[in-house]
């Protein structure tokens, strides 16, 4: 049974990331002014020691799988493909080409030739990006639909299970159509807020 944390403490945790270091600095300043620079340094050192222990412990928690995947992690898993980076490079090159034409460093014939080359390259890359991302996009939509259906089922009162079941059935049907196993929970739980193990 999950331990229910009071709402106010739960809200306090994310603020500790900046409040705790600030508090240590303030305390060190006060102590240093009253008792000497040495004690101020020791106070900061103590705070840093606590911080390093907390960071290493949070890192170890991630190893054991205790910390849920954060929203940032989930989003960052969609790393840009090399085609996307090449596309950006080609667009940059086009921008430079326009500049050089405007300041007269390149004649119209060369400009037309190069612009056509870069534009076709950009079109090719855009097509490649779309082709790469399309199945991922569909999969993401399907996972989202399943999650929403599961959440609705959990929140719906008893007696409305039929409608929930039908929603899940439709999702399963969609999954089978895409060739995926709808019962395979390959994606970890996604937490909206970073856990205590998140980086300061």
């Amino acid at each position, binding site marked *: 049974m999950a331990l229910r944390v009071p709402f106010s403490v739960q809200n306090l945790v994310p603020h500790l990331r900046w409040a705790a270091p600030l508090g240590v600095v303030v305390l060190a300043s006060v102590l240093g002014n009253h008792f*000497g*620079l040495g004690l101020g340094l020791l106070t900061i050192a103590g705070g840093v020691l606590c911080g390093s222990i907390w*960071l290493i412990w949070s*890192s170890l*928690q991630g190893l054991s799988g205790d910390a849920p995947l954060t929203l940032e992690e989930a989003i960052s898993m969609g790393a840009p493909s090399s085609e996307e980076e090449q596309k950006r*490079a080609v667009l940059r090159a086009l921008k430079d080409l326009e500049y*050089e034409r405007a300041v007269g*460093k390149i004649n119209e014939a060369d400009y037309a030739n190069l612009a056509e080359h870069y534009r076709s390259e950009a079109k090719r890359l855009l097509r490649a990006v779309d082709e790469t991302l399309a199945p991922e996009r569909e999969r993401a939509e399907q996972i989202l639909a399943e999650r929403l259906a599961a959440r609705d089922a959990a929140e719906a009162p008893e007696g409305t299970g039929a409608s929930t079941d039908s929603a899940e059935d439709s999702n399963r049907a969609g999954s089978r159509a895409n060739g995926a196993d709808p019962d395979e929970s390959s994606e*970890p739980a996604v937490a909206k807020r970073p856990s205590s*193990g998140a980086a300061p």
Partner: protein
Amino acid sequence: MLGSVPVLWESLPEFGTGVLYAVLVAAAYTFAVSVAAGRGRPRLLQSARLGAYGTTALVLLGVLLLAYAFITHDFRIRYVARYSDRSMTTTYLFTSLWGGQDGSLLWWLFLLSLYIAACVRWLEGKYRLLQPYVIATLMVIVGFFAVLMLYSANPFETSMAGARVDGDGLNPLLRNYYMIIHPPSLYTGFVGCSIPFAFAIAALVTGRLDSEWIVAVRKWMLFAWMFLSLGNVLGMKWAYEELGWGGYWAWDPVENAACLPWFTATAYVHSTMIQERRNTLKVWNVFLICMTFFLTIFGTFLTRSGMISSVHSFAQSDIGTYFAGFMGFIVAVCGGLIVWRLPLLKSQGRIEAVLSREAAFVVNNWALLGGCTFIALATTWPLVTEFFQGQQATVGPPFYNRWMTPIGICILALMGAAPLFGWRKTSNLSLKRAFRNPTLVMLGVLILHLIFGTSLGFPAVVLDPPTYNGAVGWVVQRLAAIAPLITVALVSFNFAVVFQEFQRGVSARRRNSSEGLVEALFTLVRKSRRRYGGYIVHVGIGLMYLGFCGKAWELEKEASLLPQESAEVGGYKLTYKGSRREVDQEKQMIFADMDVEKGGRTLPQVHPAKFIYNESNMGPTTEVSQLNTLRDDLYVVVGTIDVESKRATFRIHVNPLVAFIWIGVMILLSGAAVSLWPDVSLREVGAWSYARAAAGVTSGVMFALIMASSPAAAVESARDHLKREAATLRAPERPLAAAAFASVPPGDWSGSGVSILGGLLIGAAVAWSGSRREGSGPRSDHG
């Protein structure tokens, strides 16, 4: 709590050593987790990131403990006893952190940790496939320095003889303002090269060798390059103001080692543009980044191994073996990875025309690499000759000056010409139009210099005695003779090119819009920050070349004077008024006062001096006195002063155009700031991220500008401070704030705070005005 402080104090050395072990363990753990995250377990990436932060925190803990040991005069620790004493002010106690080898290695590790924390924070949500290997590579570097400190240069090692009553104190040559700013700025540049290196390794390991990683590292490398430039120039300023030999660059082995990575980094920031646009020179760029990092380690190796004696060298120790091993490891890993990935590194584009910017950049790269190779060879020449001939042969400043001058002139010429070429190819007509006006300006300046140079005191041709005999000596002598003429002409060519580029860009904008001149200029720079920031950097470098060129016209005179006798040099008339003696807590000071006149005008007095430190076994140190103008510096050094007869010997230098070096670096920093400014739109990242990024750039650059500009003020302030302290008892212990800030010019400490606060305010203001301009309020972002 206060009662436990003595207990902690007793175990401080052991605890500090324990922290270093913890750093090593944390780095190893983070390395393992990162590699696992990169090899199919992406969930572990967050653990790796937290491990990196934790490692950073542990290094910071080590630095704080060492600082505590200095502040509390814990002379049980060998390093503290060697580099501090009870008479030192709090500021110099802190600067002693990097005053010796052991502490400077910890300081290096600390700066590396700060970079790692910043990089990991910046990487959040980006370059997901590269991230694990970036972190892993950085942890290897951390691990190396941790091993180095634990087994060869432990800053927490205790003395065999136990605690001493007092320490040796800092070398008098290091008791000056530059000790506070030069090593940190140079180390910031050195250490910053680790980030691009980590990205290069990550790209090689993952095989993602397109422009993705190049774009990622561009600004990191530029930031490191900026601090390499600043650090080297601050070293020049230090040598000029403190060492008293009349110059700013002696081609000392450690000076040379510090500038080697600057050459390769400069080559990289140019050639990376070729890869971004043309998808070529991939192997070259990877090589440049690896070489830049290698040279930072190589420079540290040269400094610390003592293999080549230098005024900077620390005592010869066994850490040279560790560095040699690490350099071998770097070469093996980089070489192996490059060879493995050669098929992927094959260029997909090619350089199609000689008259193209790509070709100009390649030639420029060769010139920069040529200069780097020449300096590296000449610096290590004693080792080479010892290996082959059994005895060391050294080369001195005349050799460097002779051969670096034509290399430098080539680089200056290419710096001006390259922006005039277009990418891919430039038509003959475009080329003629582009070169016409700058060439006319250059020819005009050249003719004016020939006609009026001598009468203005800057003759166009300066014939020095030949360095070598025979035909080679004759050719070299003639080339050196016309070097000032060519340099001044090429500097004017560069200025004209930059002006033309701005003018053409503004005109093009105004043709297509209704913008006014200022608005068009501002928008032009805003939309092409890298290009125009680079042009501003070129202006700064051009001014620095002008400053270097002034060496051709320097004058020097030695004079032995009794009071009321005068000496004249370079239009200055110096009259020796007499000597006076002052004392303070740590030294005796003997000043020689001189009145100065020029062209019948009375100028401020100069007061060259000798300082004799009570605690030091060194002889008297030389304190230079200067009068600085844009045209020249009057630089006076006193040799000996006979206390009875009052006769004093002086060496008087007139050094033309030196001020342009310092002005040039300020402009260089400004140009780098423009290039570094975040180029994402407000809409993409949100107001808070934009303000944060902008504040980071602004505060970093403002801090650099303040460091660059404050030495002059610091010298004056320090002299006033010395005069007030002279012949007075030491003031009683002051509260924390006053004690910490006492001996440093107030402007610098408050300037540091101003720079950070100013950076935040500027960044926030730009973000807010940007949000109003784009018609949307600030929104929260997930970054």
